[in-house]
C-alpha cells in the first residue's frame, strides 16, 4: 500500500523548472528521506505535495488521492508538514494553546481542551508551557510545539523539512528520538528532507539522492553502512559527509 506516490513530476517557480521528472513511491508506515545539497529541489517536492508550489505537472498522490494545485483541506487532515526553523514557523503573538487549537477549529473538531493537553504530553512538554509564547521557549521546545501542531489532526503522513537542522546536537537527539517514537506508536509515514546523512541513518528506511532537480539514486539506508552507492554524485556526497571512515 503506497502512502505517497510521485510519477514523472516536474515542478517550477515562475516558469523556471527546478525539479525534473521525479518518480518515487513511499509505502505506508515507511520513513523515506530526500537528501541533497541546497538548491537540489528537495524541499520543493514537499511544497508541491501540500500545494504550496502550485506549478507542477505529472502524477502525484497522497494516500490514494490525487494532489491538487493548491492547499487542500481534506489533504491537510491526513498529511501535515513540520518546517525547518521553529523560530520562523510559529506565530510570535499566539500562545501555544492558540497554535494547537487552530487546526481543530478549522476542521470543526471538538474536545479541544483535552486534545491540546494530550498533544503536549505526547511531545514531552510540561502543561505549564500551554499558555506561553514562542519567545518564552527554547529552540527544542518550539520544535516540539511545531510537531505537536502537526499531530493535532492525527495525520497518517508527516512531511518533515529539515526538522532538526536549526537545533543543537543534544536537542537534535531529543527531537529525533521523539520522531522515532511517534512513528512507532502511531504507524506514521515520514517523508523527510535533510542534508544530514547520519540523521537519515537513524530515522529512515530508504532515501532518494537529489542533485540539480533530479533524483540520481534511490538507495536503502544500509548503503550508509557500507557506502555502496552506485551514482558518482551520491558517492561524493557520502564521502563529504564523513562516510567511509574519514571521521575519527
Amino acid at each position, binding site marked *: 500500500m503506497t502512502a505517497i506516490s510521485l510519477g514523472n513530476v516536474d515542478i517550477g517557480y515562475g516558469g523556471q523548472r527546478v525539479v525534473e521528472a521525479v518518480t518515487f513511491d513511499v509505502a505506508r508506515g515507511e520513513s523515506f528521506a530526500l537528501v541533497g545539497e541546497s538548491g537540489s529541489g528537495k524541499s520543493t517536492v514537499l511544497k508541491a505535495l501540500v500545494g504550496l508550489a502550485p506549478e507542477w505537472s505529472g502524477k502525484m498522490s497522497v494516500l490514494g488521492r490525487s494532489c491538487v494545485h493548491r492547499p487542500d483541506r481534506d489533504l491537510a487532515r491526513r498529511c501535515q508538514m513540520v518546517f525547518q526553523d521553529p523560530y520562523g514557523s510559529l506565530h510570535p503573538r499566539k500562545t501555544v494553546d492558540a497554535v494547537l487549537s487552530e487546526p481543530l477549529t478549522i476542521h470543526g473538531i471538538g474536545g479541544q481542551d483535552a486534545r491540546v493537553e494530550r498533544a503536549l504530553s505526547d511531545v514531552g512538554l510540561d502543561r505549564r508551557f500551554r499558555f506561553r509564547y514562542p519567545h518564552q521557549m527554547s529552540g527544542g521546545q518550539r520544535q516540539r510545539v511545531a510537531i505537536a501542531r502537526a499531530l493535532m489532526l492525527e495525520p497518517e503522513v508527516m512531511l518533515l523539512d529539515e526538522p532538526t537542522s536549526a537545533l543543537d*546536537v543534544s536537542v537534535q537527539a531529543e527531537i529525533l528520538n521523539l520522531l522515532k517514537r511517534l512513528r512507532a506508536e502511531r504507524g506514521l509515514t515520514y517523508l523527510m528532507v535533510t542534508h544530514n546523512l547520519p540523521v537519515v541513518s537513524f530515522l529512515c528506511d530508504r532515501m532518494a539522492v537529489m542533485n540539480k532537480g533530479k533524483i540520481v539514486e534511490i538507495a536503502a539506508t544500509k548503503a550508509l553502512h557500507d557506502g555502496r552507492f552506485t551514482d558518482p554524485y551520491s558517492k561524493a556526497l557520502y564521502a563529504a559527509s564523513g562516510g567511509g571512515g574519514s571521521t575519527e
Partner: protein
Amino acid sequence: MALLSVEDLRVSFPSPQGRVNVVDGISFELGQERLGIVGESGSGKSMTGRALLRLIRPPGRVEGRMRFEGQDLAALSERQMRALRGARISMIMQDPRYSLNPVMTVGTQIAEALRVHEHLPRREVRARVRQMLDSVRITDPDRVAGLYAHELSGGMGQRVMIAMMLIPRPRLLIADEPTSALDVSVQADVLRLIDDLVRDRSTADGGMALILISHDLPLVARYCDRILVMNAGRIVESCAASDLHLASHPYTRGLLAAVPKMNETRAELPVMDRSAWAGT
C-alpha cells in the same frame, strides 16, 4: 612566549535578574597552533571570540586579562585596536551573505581590507588581490573580482571572506562557525583551504594561529590540534584533538554520544540530563 594568553575572561550582560556572565572566568593560552572551541548555543564560545577583538558593545562588559603578542588588549585605545583588527587578528564570520558588503564588488572589498592597513601603489594592490583570490582557489580571479556578493554561491562567498581576512597577513585568525551556512560538500573544501593557508603561513611571515569556533565536535577534532569544550560560559574540558575519545567530562561525553553516526544501529540516541553537570 604564547601568542595569546587569556586569563579569567568574563563577559557579562545585564538582565532583569542582575548581570549574567555569558563567559564566566575562562583562561587559556594559544601558541602557534590550531585551537578549537566547541559548545552548544549559549555556551559563550562566540562571545569569547568577539571579546578578543573587543567587539562587545555596552551594556555588555568584558573583564579579565587578554594579552596578544605581549600587548594588553584591554589597555589599547579604540584607534590602536582598529589598527590591530584585521591586520594582526582577523575573523571569519558565519554567513558570507550577511558579512559581505552588498553594494561593493568583491575586488574592491578585498582591496579595501589591504589598503586600510598598508599603503601600497594601486597596481600592487591589484596584484595582491589577484594573488589572494588565486590562493583561495577561485579559478577566474579577474572575473570574480568584478562580481557583487549576491552573484556568488555560498562556498565562493566564504572563500572571498577568507581572502579578505587573510590579505593583511594576520598572526591570528578567528573563524566563527565558518562553514555552518554551507553545504556539506563545500564545507570540507573551505575547511581544507583554511587549514592549508594556516599551515603554509606557519613557516613564512612569522606564522599564523587559528581559533576555530564551532558546535560540531567531530569536525573540530578533524581540523584542530587542541580542543576546548565550553558549557554555560566555562571551559569544561581541554584536550588534544587526538585524545577526544578519551574525554572524561560528562558534558563532552554526552555531546559525542548524541550525534547520530553514519552507520547508526542504536534504537535511541542518548539524551543528556541537563541537571547532571549544572554544578560544574
